[in-house]
C-alpha cells in the first residue's frame, strides 16, 4: 500500500456494471516526504474520503475484488483508509488536524 492525496472526483455514467454505485476518486500517490510519486491513480473509494484528504491506497486486483465481493471485477486500485497520523523514525510527520476532520 501507499499514501496519496485525493485530487479529483470522477463521474461516469456509461461504465462496467461492477462500478455502479461505487465512488471513483483520482489520487496522487505521494512519497513519505509528500512529494509526488508517479502519475495519478483512479481508485474505488471504500472510505468516504474527500478531495484534499490523505488516504491509503491499495493497488492489487485480487484484493480489490475481495473488497467488492466479486470474483472477476475489472478493478485494480482502491482507497482503503483515511490517514489520521503518520510517525516515521519516531517523528510525527503527519497529523490530521481536528479542524480538518470536522
Amino acid at each position, binding site marked *: 500500500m501507499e499514501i496519496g492525496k485525493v485530487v479529483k472526483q470522477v463521474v461516469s455514467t*456509461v461504465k462496467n456494471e461492477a462500478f455502479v454505485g461505487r465512488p471513483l476518486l483520482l489520487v496522487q500517490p505521494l512519497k513519505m516526504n509528500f512529494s509526488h510519486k508517479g*502519475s495519478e491513480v*483512479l481508485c474505488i473509494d471504500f472510505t468516504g474520503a474527500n478531495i484534499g484528504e490523505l488516504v491509503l491506497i491499495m493497488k492489487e486486483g485480487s484484493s480489490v475484488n475481495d473488497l467488492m465481493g466479486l470474483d472477476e471485477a475489472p*478493478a485494480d486500485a482502491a482507497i482503503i483508509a483515511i490517514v489520521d497520523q503518520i510517525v516515521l523514525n519516531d517523528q510525527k510527520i503527519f497529523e490530521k488536524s481536528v479542524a480538518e476532520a470536522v
Partner: protein
Amino acid sequence: MYLGKVIGHAVCTAKDGQLQGLKLIIVTKVDKDGNSKGKPFIACDSTGAGAGETVFLCGGGEAAFPFVKVRPPSDATILGIIDKIEG
C-alpha cells in the same frame, strides 16, 4: 485504474481468437486536468467509447474481466466513459 483519452483505433484480422469481435482503441493517458501525457498504446474497449472521449481504464490481469464471453489477452481495457472530473 487510470484516466485516458481515445485518439484512434486499430483494425486487425489475424489475431488471437479471444480478441475476435473486440474493438482495439488507441489511447493516451491523461492527467487530472485532462492533458495527454506519455506515449499512445492499444487498449480493448468494453464501452463503445469514441475518438476524443475521456475514459477510464484498468491495467493488469483484471483487464481481461469486463467481457462476458471471452477472456482476451489484454493488459489495458476501457471500463467507462467519463462525464466530468470535479474538484
